[in-house]
């Protein structure tokens, strides 16, 4: 008559496994779009809470992972839209690498700031499309699926993003 519901313990274990398997990937994905550890942490938590509240979507693990990425992308885009330009803040954690000299660290940090200043010029969707394609290495089709839009729209976002960034870099070099 009615559908069998898994016992609470099994459901809890499944939830924990799902979180452990996907947490790092989703955090990195969001971090690359919002560019800020604290916001990425909040948004990652929000994404998992949203996903786990709809457990019926978690039956097929492969589909669930894809669905989760989609929620993550949309949540990050919504966040950027709500907050306008991205606000970068210093990370509190120990960011020193044992293999890097202090000079290298400074250079790397400066280069990152330089890139992130350029990313501030992009719209939320341009930034998300560029990060998914050029940083995450997703195909244009995968980006379109994650952003819920057509491949043509994704191409347009990517082209605009690259053109804006190139102009920004050319301007900085002068």
């Amino acid at each position, binding site marked *: 008559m009615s559908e069998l519901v898994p016992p609470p313990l099994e459901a809890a274990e499944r939830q924990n496994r799902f979180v452990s398997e996907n947490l790092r990937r989703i955090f990195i994905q969001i971090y690359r779009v919002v560019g800020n*550890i604290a916001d990425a942490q909040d948004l990652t938590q929000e994404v998992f809470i949203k996903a786990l509240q709809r457990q019926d979507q978690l039956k097929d693990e492969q589909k669930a992972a894809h669905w989760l990425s989609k929620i993550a992308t949309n949540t990050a885009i919504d966040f950027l839209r709500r907050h306008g330009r991205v606000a970068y803040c210093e990370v509190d954690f120990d*960011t*020193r690498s044992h293999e890097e000299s202090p000079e290298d660290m400074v250079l*790397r940090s400066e280069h990152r700031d330089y890139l992130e200043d350029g*990313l501030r010029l992009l719209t939320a969707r341009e930034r998300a499309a560029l*990060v998914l*394609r050029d940083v995450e290495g997703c195909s244009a089709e995968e980006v379109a699926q994650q952003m819920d839009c057509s491949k043509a729209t994704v191409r347009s976002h990517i082209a605009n993003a690259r053109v804006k960034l190139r102009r920004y870099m050319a301007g900085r070099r002068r």
Partner: protein
Amino acid sequence: MIKHPSEADLALFAGGELSRWRRWRVERHAAECEDCRRDISDFEALRMESAALAVLPEVSWDRLAAEMKANIRVGLEAGECVDAPSAPRVVFSPRALAACVSLAALLVASVFLERPAPRVAQVETAEPVLETSGSGIQFREGDQGMVLLNRHAPEGPVNDLATGRAMQQSYVDSETGLVTINNVYVE
């Protein structure tokens, strides 16, 4: 004069996102155009630079992950508290559903059949009639009537009162000598 591809096309060419036909056109043009080749290599360099964003700051991942897991758990528990407990969903099988429908149809049919037939309204046209008989004064209207019985009433005279809608009958009891007068009015 050479028509250059758009900047957007060059940006997409650098990332390999152009369709086959447009890629061929850009390729053919770039083979002979120094400016476009330089633009393409700029876009390719830009892609390489963007990849630097892939490097995460060296955060203490274990600590961050533990914190996030705990917050997710708290968020889910809070969500469960806020959500009103929904009534258990009952799913009927097709057989049970058919039985319910049949029962409902049976009930409707029985109510319909048991319902009293509507009365045909009778139009009473007959005037009320008052008349006397040996036993008393009788009132009749249509097929309904009423008699005021007086077993000792004589076959005597009956007075018609002024209105024509009333009658009076009087008699004397021979044993007791009491006089009884009956007045009957019709309204």
